[in-house]
């Protein structure tokens, strides 16, 4: 019960071309197939040189992000039936330099993520005998949403600012910084401030909001960023008060 679907896939092979080109493939798709299944079929039976990333095939690893009909999605989580009738346009995520076909270079994202110290930062570690750091469900609730990020970078593709101004640290990085800032076990907010409050940090964001729309894990990075803007502004005012401790 297969159905033929045309996929128009962006190819980029620097050793034979200067600019990306489009190549059409007709694939007989089963009704339950995801875009990833079609790509795997092409790679296995039609053109083994097609390059793309994937791993878990179940929407938790964040590897398979790409643009399908102009929208950033996880190819393993998008039904072919949801993009019918063809032709289905498949391109690499925006905002990242394309290495080959559908594979973008994500070094920029990784560097920026490292720069906000996405781990628990503490003055001193509790001795092991005292056991684990305790946390109430309410304290967990403060940051849980932001911890769901799978680093798929769909938000970077959706964010027009990131493509226009590649110095912008971007939605996921800020949301992850907030995930640690709001974690009761963390004491590192001060250390993350410089990067977050820099010109390329939260202030480059103009609240387009597309990052939240495309996020497959409901992280709401736009909300995280705006909340931090409010926090930063309030803190700035508080620091101006005569009785503030600097």
């Amino acid at each position, binding site marked *: 019960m297969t159905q033929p679907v045309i996929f128009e896939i962006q190819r980029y092979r*620097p*050793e034979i071309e200067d600019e990306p080109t489009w190549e059409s493939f007709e694939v007989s798709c089963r009704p339950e197939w995801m875009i990833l299944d079609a790509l795997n079929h092409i790679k296995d039976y039609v053109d083994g040189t097609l390059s793309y990333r994937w791993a878990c095939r179940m929407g938790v690893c964040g590897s398979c992000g790409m643009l399908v009909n*102009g929208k950033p999605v996880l190819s393993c989580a998008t039904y072919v039936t949801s993009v019918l009738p063809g032709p289905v346009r498949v391109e690499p995520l925006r905002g990242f330099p394309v290495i080959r076909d559908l594979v973008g270079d994500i070094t920029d994202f990784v560097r920026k993520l490292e720069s906000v110290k996405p781990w628990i930062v503490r003055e001193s570690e509790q001795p092991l005998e005292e056991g684990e750091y305790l946390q109430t469900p309410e304290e967990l609730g403060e940051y849980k949403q932001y911890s769901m990020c799978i680093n798929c970078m769909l938000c970077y593709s959706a964010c*027009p600012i990131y493509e226009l101004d590649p110095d912008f640290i971007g939605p996921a990085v800020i949301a992850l910084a907030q995930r640690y800032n709001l974690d009761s076990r963390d004491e590192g907010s001060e250390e993350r401030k410089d990067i977050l409050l820099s010109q390329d940090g939260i202030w480059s964001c103009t609240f387009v909001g597309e990052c939240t729309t495309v996020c497959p894990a409901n992280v709401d990075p736009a909300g995280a960023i705006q909340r931090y803007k409010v926090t930063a502004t309030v803190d700035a005012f508080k620091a101006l008060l005569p009785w503030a401790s600097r």
Partner: protein
Amino acid sequence: MGEPVNPGYTEHHAKWHRRRIPIFWWLGNAAYTKFIVRELTSLAVGYAALVLVFQVWSLERGPESYAHFVSWLQLRPVVTLHVVVLGALVYHSVTWLNLAPRALVLRLAGRRLPGAVVLLLHYGAWLVASAAVLWLLLAA
């Protein structure tokens, strides 16, 4: 794959591709277009503030100059412009207030206020402010 045929390519020298962003990138997507329109309402805000100052200034200069200002207000094209400005200002207000719950996390007695409540508070404030303006201009 065979031998590379692109003369611009040197083997083992990575040649990544970045696309050129079209000048009207924001027309390609409804969400982006709405975003740019939303941001352009700041022009209406600036314009309104400017004319407001001008209005007070002409008031200052006496009944004649104020009458001149009032007659300018009554010109057809000016009224039309101001209807457009009003539309932009309302769009500014609605989009601004709708985004408020995303940015403002308020707590009452330790519990987080639901977004709908924050939204209602903002719209309520808008209503009160508008009523105050109406009272000030019409009744006082």
